[in-house]
């Protein structure tokens, strides 16, 4: 264990002994009716994992949340380790690009995007931090869990992480996990229990804005 990790573990132990301040978890209106109806708002602080195959509508859902945040003049960070985000599409989804920071760390074998995400969440400078993580089978996902670190960072910065992935990653303990498919979105995990009686059914994704609709 490195010296920094030892220090962090000791600090955590001290916090546990002293009884740190209780974290107030709440759901904040997201500005997207479908999400507010489904989840009662976005967990703040919290981690939301959006699972589904690429192309099924994950960016449409998250893009709507980001657009709503930027329309409230809130800065948003988008961590893009796969280097395939195409910002013109976000612009069509209503995102104000001037308020969007894109973070594309070069892969050096240490998965720097994990660290970058933690720092962005911890800083509290961004209301939303979006990450499109590598697929579960791909290299680049850490072996050890990062969810607890991210959760602590989000608590520190009162931010919300939106993590896009193909399938649920066991390394990541999300407060809310949504599964997206051709039928729409379904809540498969809700730590706060706010899910508003959808009975495990699917709800449709937000409609495409006219400028972004491919049809």
């Amino acid at each position, binding site marked *: 264990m490195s010296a920094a990790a030892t220090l962090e573990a000791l600090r955590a132990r001290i916090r546990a002994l002293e009884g740190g301040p209780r974290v107030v978890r709440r759901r904040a209106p997201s500005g997207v009716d479908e999400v507010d109806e489904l989840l009662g708002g976005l967990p703040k602080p919290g981690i939301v994992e959006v699972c589904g195959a690429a192309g099924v509508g994950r960016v449409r859902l998250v893009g709507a949340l980001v657009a709503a945040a930027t329309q409230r003049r809130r800065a948003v960070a988008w961590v893009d380790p796969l280097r395939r985000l195409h910002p013109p599409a976000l612009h*069509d989804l209503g995102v104000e690009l001037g308020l969007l920071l894109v*973070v594309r760390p070069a892969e050096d074998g240490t998965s720097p995007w994990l660290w970058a995400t933690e720092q962005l969440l911890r800083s509290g*400078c961004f209301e939303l931090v979006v990450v499109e993580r590598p697929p579960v089978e791909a290299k680049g996902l850490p072996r050890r869990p990062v969810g607890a670190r991210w959760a602590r960072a989000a608590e520190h910065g009162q931010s919300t992480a939106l993590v896009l992935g193909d399938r649920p990653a066991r390394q990541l303990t999300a407060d809310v996990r949504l599964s997206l498919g051709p039928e729409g979105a379904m809540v498969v995990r809700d730590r706060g229990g706010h899910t508003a009686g959808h009975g495990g059914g699917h709800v449709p994704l937000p409609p495409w804005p006219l400028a972004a609709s491919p049809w």
Partner: protein
Amino acid sequence: MRVMVLSLPAFRLERCGYEADAVAGLIAEEKSAMRLQAVTPAAQALGLRPFQTATAARALVPEVELVPWEEAEEARDRQALVRACAELSDRVRAPWPDGLVMDVTSTARHFGGEAGVLGRALELMASLGHQARGVVADDATAARALSVWGGGGVVPPGEGAQALATLPLHALEPSDGVREALRAVGVVTVGALAALTASSVATRFGEEGALLHAVARGGCAPGLVDWAEPESAERRVRVAMGGATSTLQLHFVLPGLLSQLSQRLGRRGEAVVRLRVAMHLEPTKGVPPVVAVSVRVGRPTRSPRALEPLVRMRLEGVQLQAPVDELVLEAVEVAAEQGWQPGLTDRTEATEPLPDLLARLADHLGDDALFGASLADAWRPETSWRPVPWPPTRLVARAARQRLPDDPVELQQQHERIDELPRPSLLMAKPTPLEVRVHDGAPCSVRTERGWQQVQRRVGPERLRSEWWSDDYWSRDYWVVRVDGIVQWLFVTPEGHWFLHGLFD
């Protein structure tokens, strides 16, 4: 004091791409004629000398290549050499156009002694493509004379006079007047000068003669090299670490060191923008002598309390391969302290100011890793946006809808922009080949991991072409298709090859 002088006889031509054995010279206008400023050793061997006119040089050696002297570029390259030698000594100067001098009194031991530091210096010069000779001696003038006229090497302390004795007098580079005056009395070697008495030389040949006489006798001639610390040294503080083996030990000295730096900067009214933290390691085989990290500061400050966490955080990732001998902090970029005001878009929940966070991320991830996006007026999907610095200097409010322009060309362009089809949210860096079955020119099924899948919905084609003048000209017909619930952006080339280029995620 022990100094090392490196003589680089062909530096001025080598930086122009000529080897020492090429016949070449630098020319510049001087006294109404183009005259040689420097020549390679090979050209010198053929009789070419500085200050000859270019015409005379060409008459003497017709094959000589003459290139114009670029004074500013040469000075910049010389400074680059000085910086490269920072690993050998913290005091490096370039008092001659073709030579460097450095104080190796306290740094030679890091290289296993004076011979070691000299060997490393020659190796460094060779790796940079420069032929060099070097001498370590008690005095810079003596070392310079020996490096140019002697064979190079280490002159033991106190043996300078003996080493210089046989050299011609002009090896000490006296002024024309002193040289002629000495020659007139029969003094043509350094040994002959040393044999004179100090008082008679001082009386007859003045201050310069006295200094040269001191050097000839193995003494020092202070003042020939300006060792005064440059302005940058005011922004540097150091502390001996005595072999610290962990970066945690460095944390203990940081507050004091930063406070010292802060005081120095305070005197000049400056604040840190970028800090260099250099850890000088104990000499260990196969380990670089210095490990340095750069710490960027988001808001210029000289407050030790603000700087300390940034430095500590940056040191966290440093792996020490040898004990630390000395820790040096240097403010390599400074600015006037101007305070900082949060922006309108900054969150009240922020636990760290945005500029500090961005500086830290850029330090770790590189400058190119953080950017904003700006739309570009280009058809090519890959160039339809460009990275821009973030945050933008001015956040422009969404423009109100404007009335249609009167100019028909502008109107047409606006319609083209309006009619542009949407683009996918995920764009592959490299299009992936696909197998597609086609009916009447339109895709009807696509082969996926689950076998052939029917296209459930499609829109297209949209023909895109790259710029006709570009080298990699292409023409593609793009289709938006939904296959198995996934909305894909495909294109087909004129040869009938299909590719997946993006996803409407």
